């Protein structure tokens, strides 16, 4: 499955360009979903099998594209995503038994925690003196918009996964 590397690279590239060029027009109260982050989260959170090198590649690729368009310093998102990646793995390991039962709730909660943790980490690495959070209507819009897109992403991922894992082998009747 070597070709998954260029595919994911291309996917992240197109998403980054789409997010920086197209999505600002569809912002609500100047808030647009962070598609790159959502894509990264889905790819790490919903992975079917363990492949450390692939996940590490995801961290570097997603972090690079987030940094090049949306951060002042290269490497900040890479580092933040790596920390989040380790946290996701650890949490998944701890909460393994509840994952299937309350999957959507678990997914949304994990996404929100990671989303705000990512914001906090990038702020910490870029401007530690200006760390703070203004909770208001904009934050609510940010949560709703991003969670909606993340849920749509989950649905799309499941559809694609179902399609790819269909048993297409011809069987004798």
């Amino acid at each position, binding site marked *: 499955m070597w070709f998954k590397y260029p595919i994911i690279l291309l996917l992240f590239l197109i998403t980054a360009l789409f997010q*920086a060029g197209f999505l600002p027009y569809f912002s609500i109260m100047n808030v647009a979903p962070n598609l790159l982050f959502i894509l990264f989260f889905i790819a790490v959170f919903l992975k079917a099998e363990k492949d450390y090198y692939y996940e590490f590649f995801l961290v570097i690729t997603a972090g*690079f594209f987030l940094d090049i368009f949306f951060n002042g310093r290269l490497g900040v998102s890479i580092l933040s995503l790596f920390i989040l990646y380790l946290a996701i793995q650890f949490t998944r390991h701890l909460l393994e038994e509840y994952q299937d039962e309350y999957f959507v709730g678990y997914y949304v909660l994990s996404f929100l925690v990671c989303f705000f943790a990512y914001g906090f980490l990038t702020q910490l690495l870029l401007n530690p003196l200006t760390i703070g959070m203004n909770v208001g209507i*904009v934050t609510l819009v940010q949560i709703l918009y991003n969670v909606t897109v993340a849920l749509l992403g989950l649905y799309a991922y499941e559809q694609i996964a179902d399609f790819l894992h269909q048993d297409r082998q011809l069987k004798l009747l």
Partner: protein
Amino acid sequence: MDIYIRKQNFILRRIVISAMVLILVIGFLNIFQSQVRNSFYTISAPVSKSFWKSGNSAFSFLASFLPSENAKKENVILRQENQNLLAQVASLQDSLRQGYLAQGALQVAKENNFSLSLAHIIALDLHSDFVLIDKGLEDGIYENMPLISNEKVLFGKVLQVYRNFSKVMLISNSASVLDVKIQSDESQKTPVYGAIKGTGAGSLYLDLVSSDAEINEGNVLITSALEGIFPRNLLVGQIISKDKNDLRPFQTAQVQQFFDIKNTDTLFVITNYKK
């Protein structure tokens, strides 16, 4: 037990190796930051521009279906403003004919004789209020150069310059502060000064206005050039609500910014402004 320890060591070793690789990658990216960014933007610019244009078209198309209640209200306000402006223009023309303001007007025209460099927006970071434009060092762009629209509306200043591209910090960025003059209806009054601070997500507020100064809703804010980065008399925004508190030494106000990044794809960099 032995297997468990070995597994733990294996995981730990993997994390340490990954961390080392990350340090190398981040170090490399930061040493060659300028080259990496410029090369990437050069390669991706055609696609970015097409996304920007298609986003604009799609937005305009969809906006035509949205309820027009706001547009009607805005239209009424704009019509009133237009009438006021026409009256002011007539008054100014009269004054100019008399030669009373001729010298001053000529001075203003001279001051505003900017040397402009046209730039196109390639990407926008809504979260941090940054814009990427397709002009850089090779086009004579340097840090801190102001960006305006063709209507002399201030957008921001150049923050980082690469060979062919520049990163622009919008005035709504949370780190942005600029000095402004508040234009009141009565020209005889002593001018009131304040500072415009960005709050992120495309919004601004007015701060550091003396508590005894009189400011009103609808007052227009223009640059005062006190900070030495922006030329004077560039349009910034309009006061929509003021917040005066006797306990505080300064009064603040909510500001509706004039710049509209969604309806702009072309900006002008003022390349010859010096304090």
